[in-house]
């Protein structure tokens, strides 16, 4: 049984995603801050775009670079820098791919041995948020693969 991921548009410029994880905050935080672990989950097969490389210098002012695609050259490169790094409770980074890019804040809250994760994306404007959705276009068809993927994930867990 997986926990429910919720999403809410909390204002014209902000989206908030929440999810509970069955593990302590320091472990969930670790999975967000070590490139070898990020690579295992950030681009699951169902998204149809594997991670080619992942570099992360997780400290205030440090940069990250994630390349996606099926081979060189990458189809898409995500990059930016960390504004706040507070283990194991808070991470803030910029997304510097374009003018429309959001600032992402992730908080990890301990709850009886579980972790409530809240991801907050703040866009520079309403229009930027609405244009930003284009980046995820083309993915809905791939979501059908998700049903097939879930049993394997659960089995290997």
């Amino acid at each position, binding site marked *: 049984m997986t926990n429910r991921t919720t999403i809410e548009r909390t204002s014209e410029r902000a989206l908030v995603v929440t999810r509970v994880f069955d593990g302590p905050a320091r472990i969930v935080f670790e999975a967000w801050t070590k490139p070898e672990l990020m690579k295992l989950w*950030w681009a699951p097969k169902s998204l149809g775009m594997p991670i080619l490389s992942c570099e992360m210098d997780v400290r205030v002012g440090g940069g990250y670079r994630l390349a996606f695609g099926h081979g060189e050259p990458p189809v898409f490169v995500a990059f930016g820098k960390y504004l706040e790094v507070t283990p194991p409770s808070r991470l803030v980074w910029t997304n510097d791919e374009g003018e429309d890019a959001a600032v992402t804040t992730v908080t990890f809250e301990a709850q009886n041995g579980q972790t409530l994760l809240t991801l907050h994306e703040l866009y520079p404007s309403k229009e930027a948020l609405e244009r930003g959705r284009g980046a995820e276009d083309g993915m809905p068809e791939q979501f059908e693969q998700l049903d097939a993927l879930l049993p394997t994930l659960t089995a290997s867990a």
Partner: protein
Amino acid sequence: MVQFETARLDASFAALSDATRRGVLEQLGRSEASITELADRFHMTLTGMKKHVGVLEQAGFVTTQKIGRVRTCRLGLRRLEEEAAWIESYRQVWAARFDALDTVVEQLKHREKTDD
């Protein structure tokens, strides 16, 4: 079902093929407006604007409500549906990631146990 979708698409394209109607949608995206206000803004007769709004209404882009003598127009359910569909597809991206992250968390927990 396919025919219904085709008809729906035809109505959409027809509705959006006109510059005034695209302008009306843009305007209603900012705030609701009465037919009279729209007619004024687009320098049009009331009858002309009623016709345009009717086309947009049929395509599901606009809904209208008559209160007293004023007919107020706002963006229709169709736009809301699209917004909801987009949010849901975005949620699914995160859900897919987080389901994969569950596996990583389980592995890390397991590793800690065996290290003890």
